[in-house]
């Protein structure tokens, strides 16, 4: 009797172990399969010309240089706007705020902003920046839209970085007769900076991979030149991939280019993430407290 019970118990635990192992392997296989698929098919398309040339012959030949540059521009501009704002908001929340109504509202807003679908940001950016404020569909409209979208990411990462700075630095600073701002400026920010940089690079990577918001606010199907100002439209890697994959009238002809674009895009995003990890790792190693 006892033996039987023991047996069924054992069987049950084996079922659970097998099931969870199976799904774990499934997760890993999918990731590996996707990556290998992209690399195997994309690697042949990649060449120096592919990276540095403009698209030619109705995009069936040539490279993706304007899309790379456009993505670089829009992601950089995004981070340039959202990082100062996000860090400042995080400083308020972590260094100044007490438990007031306004703080609760700010936190609620951040949580809600991070749940708004990217296409809704696109619609919003179209409505406010492009149409109402008259910026048109442009690099600036897209960057502003992406900046608002990435604000919650930057704030969350920055707050974490601030929280990691020991309170004893702040106490010691104030007790030495320096002002609150001096304490933040000289005893908190320098030590939160590596964490903030990590968060910003991650935000950059995510912004660079976003498509939906820029479709509505400024990404161009094809431009023979690079954007000359923030009021120009721009080509972007993710949008370019979307076009090559589904919108082109000769899908069969551009497929190799689409593979190449996908590989460049994912390599760029992974590279940025790796930079962020290295930044974090180096900061941790240097950290003395």
């Amino acid at each position, binding site marked *: 009797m006892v033996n039987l019970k023991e047996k069924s118990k054992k069987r*049950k*635990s084996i079922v*659970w172990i097998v*099931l*969870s*192992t*199976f*799904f*774990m392997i499934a*997760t*890993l296989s999918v*990731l590996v*399969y996707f990556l290998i*698929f*992209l690399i195997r098919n994309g690697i042949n398309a990649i060449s120096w010309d592919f990276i540095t040339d403009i698209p030619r012959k109705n995009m069936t030949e040539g490279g993706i240089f304007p899309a790379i540059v456009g993505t670089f521009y829009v992601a950089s501009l995004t981070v340039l706007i959202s990082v100062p*704002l996000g860090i*400042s*908001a995080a*400083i*308020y*929340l972590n260094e100044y*705020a007490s438990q007031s109504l306004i703080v609760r509202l*700010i936190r609620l*807003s*951040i*949580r*809600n*902003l991070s*749940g*708004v*679908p990217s*296409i*809704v*940001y*696109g*619609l*919003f950016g179209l409505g406010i920046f*492009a*149409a109402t404020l008259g910026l048109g569909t442009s690099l600036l409209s897209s960057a502003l839209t992406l900046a608002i979208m990435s*604000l*919650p990411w930057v704030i969350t990462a920055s707050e974490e970085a601030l929280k990691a700075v020991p309170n004893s630095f702040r106490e010691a600073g104030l007790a030495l007769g320096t*002002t*609150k*701002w001096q304490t933040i400026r000289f005893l908190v920010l320098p030590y939160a900076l590596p964490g903030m940089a990590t968060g910003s690079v991650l935000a950059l990577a*995510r912004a660079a*991979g*976003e*498509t*939906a918001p820029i*479709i*509505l606010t400024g990404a161009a199907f094809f431009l023979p030149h690079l954007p000359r100002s923030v009021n120009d439209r721009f080509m972007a890697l*993710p*949008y370019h*991939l*979307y076009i090559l*994959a589904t919108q082109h009238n000769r899908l069969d002809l551009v497929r190799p280019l689409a593979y190449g674009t*996908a590989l460049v*895009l*994912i390599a760029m*995003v992974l590279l940025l993430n790796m930079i962020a990890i290295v930044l974090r790792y180096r900061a941790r190693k240097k950290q003395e407290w």
Partner: protein
Amino acid sequence: MNESNREELKSRIKQDSHKQNLSNFFIEKIFLICGVLTIVFLGLIVWFLISKSWPAISEIGLREFLTKTRWMPSSPIQAGYGALSFIVSSILVTVGALIIGVPWGIFTAIFIAEVAPTRIKEVLKPVVEILGIIPSVVYGFIALLIIAPKVAQLFGLSNGLTALTGSVILAVMTLPTIVSITEDAIKSVPKDYREASYALGVGKWDTIIHVVLPAASSGILAAVMLGFGRAVGETMAVLMAAGNALNMPIKEIFNIPLPTLLQSVRTLTANIAIEGSDVPWGSLHYHSLFVVGLILFVITFIVNIIADLMLTKFQKVNKNG
């Protein structure tokens, strides 16, 4: 200490600090403004969605949007503004994604939390996170080239771009969310629960099934809700995978209309992406796209609020426990 020294110290203590206080006050206010901007942005999003929707809602009526299925906003003869098929499609694709992704994610999380040795765990977590950093347009591309042909082949369809294809790719995309939050939830179940159970002679897996998972259930539910929010708001992958046909994903079997995953569908997000880039600004069509956006916003807002409540509840219960 002599008298003059004392007087000097006195005057230092009483030295006017207005200028210093004022500049610190302004610095604080600048940071406060940056924080308040998040409220402003959320408010602006809501206000823009509503005010830009309003012309369409007042002229056409919300009812047509929510109950009709004919979407022909640019038809010069008889325009139609029924967005019901988008709503149904969005929910269908999302539910399909969760049916696949939830067990997948939960078991993966169980593996990471309970089966994997610590050192492997530390490798697995960031590896799963890679799934979360792949841009959605790349997922769409993969769905188009890998999943769609498989679906077509498996179900004998001429075109593999169906709701199911969207669901499968969305399932993969929601995995990191579901895995990490579920794993957190399992991990943060208080140790006492387990120990009490072990002390009663209950085995490890019985404890996990009957004690740990129920204790983590509101956290896991939150993970599911967040996964729902993420999937329903996802644009590029469904846009590229699900075919975008304007129809209700309904099939009649023995005269009973049943939802089907094997049709081409167009979701709320996909419709905005398709029509939003070349719609004439200020037209009724333009405003009607904001109505679609508003519907999407309301759905995600509600889902995220529920997820939030679940997480708060989970954290509270665990604090007491």
